[in-house]
């Protein structure tokens, strides 16, 4: 993004790329719903896998497969689990976290930048994706009043609906 610098551009990257935003938000809502224990299990693999994915992206070792449908499937699934308030185990949250971190990281490569700016952009992206998960999961965990918990479930259903529609569009070709 021109004018804001590589590092800040990296921080904003997970918020501005909608498939990343939806997948991370849906997952964060799910983790927050499951509580503190799930958060403790999820953050380390997510952050580590994100760093690994970004490092691979920095060396242009990105997957040849389309990552957007994968992220949308992930967002739709997590949104559905949030809407159903599904009691996903903490270990499954950790597996999901590792998977999501890796996909988001590998899909966040930068083109035609000097090495220093590339490092800044990737570091910013790691920070942005980490903050997004931690903040949304924190808010989701903090809600206690029934209507607020219903609100979280409604947002989950919105994410699933939106991701499903765009997935249908990708199948249409």
């Amino acid at each position, binding site marked *: 993004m021109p004018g804001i610098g590589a590092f800040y551009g990296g921080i904003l990257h997970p918020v*501005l790329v*909608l*498939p990343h935003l*939806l997948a991370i938000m849906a997952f964060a809502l799910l983790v927050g719903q499951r509580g503190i224990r799930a958060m403790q299990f999820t953050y380390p693999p997510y952050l580590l896998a994100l760093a690994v994915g970004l490092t691979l992206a920095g060396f242009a070792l990105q997957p040849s497969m389309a990552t957007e449908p994968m992220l*949308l499937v992930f967002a739709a699934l997590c949104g*559905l689990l949030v*809407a159903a308030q599904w009691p996903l185990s903490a270990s499954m949250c950790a597996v999901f976290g590792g998977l999501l971190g890796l996909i988001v990281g590998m899909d966040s490569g930068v083109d035609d930048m000097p090495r220093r700016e590339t490092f800044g952009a990737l570091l910013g992206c790691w920070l942005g994706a980490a903050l997004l998960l931690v903040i949304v999961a924190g808010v989701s965990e903090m809600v206690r009043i029934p209507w607020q918990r*219903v609100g979280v*479930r*409604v947002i989950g*259903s*919105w994410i*699933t*609906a*939106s*991701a*499903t*529609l*765009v*997935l*249908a*569009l990708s*199948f*249409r070709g």
Partner: protein
Amino acid sequence: MLVPHKILWLTLLMCFAAAAQAHEADGLAGGFASGFVHPLLGLDHVAAMVAVGLWGAVLGGHAVWLLPVVFPLVMAFGGALGVLEVPLPSVEVGIALSALVLGIMVLFSVRPPLWFAALLVGIFAVFHGYAHGAELPDATSPLAFSLGFVIATGLLHLCGIALSLLSRWRAGNLVVRAGGGLIALAGALFLLRAF
């Protein structure tokens, strides 16, 4: 120096000047904005969405949240049918019927079992989703467009739920039921127009 009549003419000309568009609405913004206004620009959509919220609140208990959660999920299924161009007959009739039937439910405070209410709302959601989904391929950013119309739909449900708070007192209850009657009437007009 400008003489008074010139100032008058210049002022008059300024009235016909086009407004400057300081912010472009393309890409993500355009997709989201056009998706957000899509359900709001169709009175049939608005009436039915508000009725879903009103009816959920009239039913009370779990229905308040169940119907607004079920609706977007099933609407996505209908939207996918629209995107994939799977033929669905009488979409406009289905949308008009949704306003008519849901309005009647609110008008007479009909309280069927929760599963039946969810099933009925789900069937209507397919028609609404189909209509939105058919527009999706032409959107600037399909994901932003879909997010926009899903959020707008949810906010219309919220409007219905908020309006239903009036039913906590006697006169307010009459207003809510009259609102259901108006929605049903509008639905009947939409239905006549659809044929």
